[in-house]
């Protein structure tokens, strides 16, 4: 296990009171990172990629994303809201982007910096990368994989380490927005707080443990779900002000295909939903995808609109977003009040390393012996993948047994075999009479 993996904190947490210990989430987890133990679905921290699939699938609402309460903004002199464009799509067409942003000011924020505005800046930097204009960087392998979705970056670290060089080494839009607000617009000022309003479960983790850059400039992450109702009420009271700045290209980032549309790159793939993303990355690793420049890969179905912290159905939200895109300008008007960040300011400054959480043992020979035992054990299991043992499949149980985190009798069928053998033995013993009584 790498040092990085051990330090990874997670934003997906289990509500023990609500968890009934069913097997829904263990089956859906793309990295087999959940095991039911003592009736509760625990997450194996070093394998979790914060994709939020378990939050989406839990029928009991027992998996939730940790985020900050709205009250976190109290105590800052200047409170800057950093809203994801997904926020605009949560309200019906009667609510313009200006309405939504005015509501945020009514709620107590002093200023707004739209993530969509920063997304346009990141799009421009991505174009530089694709055109090979970024002199400081060696030519990166193609296709580049977007690094905007933190769950996809973590997936690559864990399951596709050979594709790490394909990741576009750029800071994600929400972080760019916070840095511009704090380091450029309010350079040198004290008491400025930047608060991201997000549909995403993985963004909390990424602000605490950034991927590819040092400390995050964000001071808090507020779940869209938590702000939805208070904002709705505030919008009713707020006088509408002209606040929206981002153009169509930035707004589109909230949905699948938005990044590719903004880039105008036809030799690209846009893929959404974590299992579809795995399929595309698998093909890329097999050398099956050639002649492509860019892959936009988003863990949530329909893109960020399908994030686990959203309120609206992602496909309804998509139509609403498209309507807003149509009424917006093509792209951002000239930047206001700040020097646009240079390419150097947007690129990663820290290496993104592979996470070796799947390795059986650092000693390859030991790992090979363990591999054999896993295979032997797996063959002895029923192969039904019923999940009653708490592992997602018989193979995963076999691996857990060899890793020492489970025992064979965790399998109900194996347990039944043992009980039957024991019963037979009891019957046989019952037949035996002491010699003196055996008449």
């Amino acid at each position, binding site marked *: 296990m790498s040092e990085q993996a051990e330090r990874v904190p997670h934003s997906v947490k289990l509500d023990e009171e609500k968890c009934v210990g069913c097997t829904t989430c263990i089956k859906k987890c793309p990295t087999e990172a959940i095991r039911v133990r003592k009736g509760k679905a625990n997450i194996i921290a070093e394998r979790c990629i914060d994709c939020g699939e378990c939050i989406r699938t839990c029928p009991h609402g027992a998996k939730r994303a940790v985020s900050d309460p709205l009250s976190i903004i109290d105590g800052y002199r200047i409170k800057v809201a950093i809203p994801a464009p997904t926020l605009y799509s949560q309200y019906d067409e009667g609510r313009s982007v200006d309405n939504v942003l005015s509501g945020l000011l009514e709620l107590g924020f002093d200023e707004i910096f739209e993530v969509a505005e920063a997304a346009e800046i990141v799009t421009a930097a991505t174009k530089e990368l694709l055109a090979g204009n970024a002199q400081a960087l060696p030519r990166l392998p193609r296709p580049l994989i977007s690094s905007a979705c933190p769950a996809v970056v973590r997936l690559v670290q864990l399951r596709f380490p050979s594709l790490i060089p394909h990741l576009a080494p750029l800071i994600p839009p929400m972080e760019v927005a916070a840095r511009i607000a704090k380091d450029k617009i309010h350079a040198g000022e004290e008491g400025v707080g930047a608060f991201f309003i997000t549909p995403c479960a993985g963004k909390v983790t990424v602000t605490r443990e950034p991927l590819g850059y040092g400390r995050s400039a964000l001071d808090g992450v507020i779940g869209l779900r938590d702000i939805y109702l208070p904002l709705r009420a505030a919008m009713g009271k707020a006088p509408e002000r002209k606040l929206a700045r981002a153009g169509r290209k930035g707004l589109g980032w909230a949905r699948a295909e938005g990044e590719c549309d903004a880039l105008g790159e036809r030799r690209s793939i846009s893929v959404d939903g974590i299992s579809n993303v795995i399929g595309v990355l698998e093909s890329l690793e097999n050398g099956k995808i050639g002649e492509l420049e860019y892959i936009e890969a988003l863990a949530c179905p329909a893109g960020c609109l399908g994030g686990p912290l959203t309120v609206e159905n992602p496909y309804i939200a998509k139509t609403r977003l498209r309507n807003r895109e149509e009424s917006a300008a093509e792209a951002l008007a000239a930047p206001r009040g700040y020097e646009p960040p240079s390419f150097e300011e947007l690129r990663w400054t820290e290496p993104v390393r592979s996470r070796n959480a799947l390795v059986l043992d650092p000693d*390859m020979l030991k790992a090979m*012996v363990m591999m054999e035992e896993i295979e032997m054990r797996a063959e002895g299991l029923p192969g039904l993948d019923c999940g009653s043992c708490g592992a997602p499949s018989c193979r995963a149980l076999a691996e857990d047994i060899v890793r020492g985190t489970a025992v064979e009798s965790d399998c109900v069928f194996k347990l039944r075999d043992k009980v039957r053998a024991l019963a037979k033995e009891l019957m046989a013993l019952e037949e035996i009479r002491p010699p003196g009584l055996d008449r």
Partner: protein
Amino acid sequence: MRLACGAGGYGTYPKGQALAVKLRFDVSGDDFSLAGKASTELKRTLARLGIGPAIIRKASIAMYEGEINMVIHAGGGVIEADIEAGGITMTLTDKGPGIPDISLAMTEGWSTAPDRFREMGFGAGMGLPNMKRNCDEFEIESEVGKGTKVRMVINL
């Protein structure tokens, strides 16, 4: 998939005998949707053994190309992969039509893939050369009417 390790069973390897994880895959000749399974399984195993990303990439490309070739040209076959401390040996055996001119088949851009596969984006004539490029040792034997055997080694 079947897997066995060394000889003499778990933990009792005679001195001098290399420890190996052996994988075996039966590649179906009539279900194209299953092509790629062997490559995915191999990758899964290599990752658990802690083998580095660069090797995994080479092995998956070589294995995937081999699998696709078997489905397109030979109606399926058998792939065996032996992972040892010194390297990964992949042996692909089929009972297909065989290759009349191996040096021609090894030429980039030469393809005999039927149209129905070309329509799917295959048949660019890069299969065998790509396999060779991604391994350290490459041997091919083929007999017309009997089949083809490819042996690839990637050093660790």
